[in-house]
């Protein structure tokens, strides 16, 4: 029996961990643990706890346990000093080279390098055979054949040269490779993007940009959390840096999503701070194609 198995057997029966009465036993310790760890709302548990003193005691005991352990861990494995990640420190010498190095080629580029020339040669051969057949049939049309070849070569050139342009590299391009913004009406914000939320940390939340709807943006955007973070891994539309008459004091209007049936867009927008100015994030339904999000 592994330690995991032993723990599975004991996880819901360990009375040493949560002292208290048998109240609220409909809620097992795993559920209470998730709640006590602050891993999400549990309205059903909260409602039951309002009516059940024993359940409230169990939750309080569980939270006390979690807090005590968290405080103990902070003491025995303290966070490093604030300047720990200063890249100027000698210990990061090798890392500095990687930070400034050009983007590494992606594996699929290697495939393109092999396949694209082969595909181009095949196209030229096919076009040549077709051209010879037509000449042989007396129906040759030089202009048409040349045109077909030109298109094939153009396609090949686009494939070959375009594959390297804007290609994703580690950390910046690789995280997002956002689509450039198309011309759009001024939304009152300098930048509007569709992005995926990372788990919040230290009062901030990162967003990996999937598409730039308006303005310009890099692949990673960091917002300071004003009141509440967005759910990690959720897709959201972000409005950054109010411009003109827009102050950012109130949430911008919902975007529209061209899909049938129309997917849901969160009615509540969450306020953040970006570069000292108000910013807004509004969650989009999972699975929405970022390309289908448009501003009203």
């Amino acid at each position, binding site marked *: 029996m592994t*330690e*995991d198995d*032993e723990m599975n057997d004991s996880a819901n029966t360990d009375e040493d961990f949560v002292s208290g009465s048998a109240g609220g036993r409909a809620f097992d310790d795993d559920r209470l643990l998730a709640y006590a760890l602050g891993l999400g709302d549990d309205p059903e548990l909260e409602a039951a706890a309002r009516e059940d003193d024993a359940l409230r005691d169990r939750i309080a005991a569980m939270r006390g*346990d979690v807090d005590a352990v968290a405080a*103990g861990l902070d003491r025995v494995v303290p966070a490093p000093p604030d300047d720990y990640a200063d890249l100027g420190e000698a210990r*990061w010498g090798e890392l500095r080279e990687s930070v400034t190095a050009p983007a590494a080629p992606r594996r699929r580029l290697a495939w393109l390098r092999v396949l694209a020339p082969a595909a181009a040669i095949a196209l030229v051969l096919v076009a040549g055979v077709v051209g010879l057949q037509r000449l042989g049939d007396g129906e040759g049309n030089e202009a048409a054949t040349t045109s077909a070849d030109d298109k094939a070569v153009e396609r090949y050139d686009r494939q070959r040269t375009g594959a390297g342009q804007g290609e994703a590299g580690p*950390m910046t391009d690789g995280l997002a490779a956002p689509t450039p913004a198309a011309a759009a009406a001024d939304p009152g914000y300098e930048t509007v993007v569709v992005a995926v939320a990372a788990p919040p*940390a230290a009062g901030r939340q990162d967003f990996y940009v999937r598409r730039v709807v308006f303005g310009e943006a890099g692949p990673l955007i960091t917002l300071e959390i004003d009141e509440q973070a967005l759910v990690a891994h959720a897709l959201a539309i972000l409005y950054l840096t109010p411009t003109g008459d827009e102050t950012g004091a109130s949430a911008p209007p919902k975007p529209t999503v061209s899909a049938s049936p129309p997917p849901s867009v969160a009615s509540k927008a969450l306020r953040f701070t970006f570069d000292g100015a108000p910013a807004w994030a509004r969650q989009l339904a999972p699975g929405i194609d970022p390309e289908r999000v448009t501003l009203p």
Partner: protein
Amino acid sequence: MRRTQPEARAEFFRRYAPQVRRILFLQGLCDEVDDAVQEVFIKVYRADLPAEERFLAWFYRLILNTGRDQGRRRKTRRGLVERLEELAPTDGTHTDVTAPGDPALRAALDGLSPDFREAVALRFFADLSLESIAAAQDVPLGTVKSRLHGALARLRQALAESGYEQER
């Protein structure tokens, strides 16, 4: 607004390096922990990155694997308790580093299996959800719950038995 690749890489490092260090330390690294932190980020910068929705699970799995590999390569082996004792007093930014329950907590951490310590580290140092921990450890959600539950029970028990609870 648009950040260059080096800026984004440097910002990513500044943001995540402290928690990576703590995770690796709890995995068992000590003298070599900064080398391991550096190795993690070099791997990230050189990697063919996954899609962004899978990036964080990939990143934390990379941290855990790096820690495990470094641990296997380690030449000098010392117990976690000894290394944790070394860690706390040498950090000049923290003065309250020796609370009454800490020796017992160090011993309890040392007694946990590596998988359990990893789950604790990901939850408390990286603030990951249970689902994200499961993805990083590549185990079912239920296993993460039982690991965390079991680990917390042992750590809490160690604190209680040492009398630390009364002195809080």
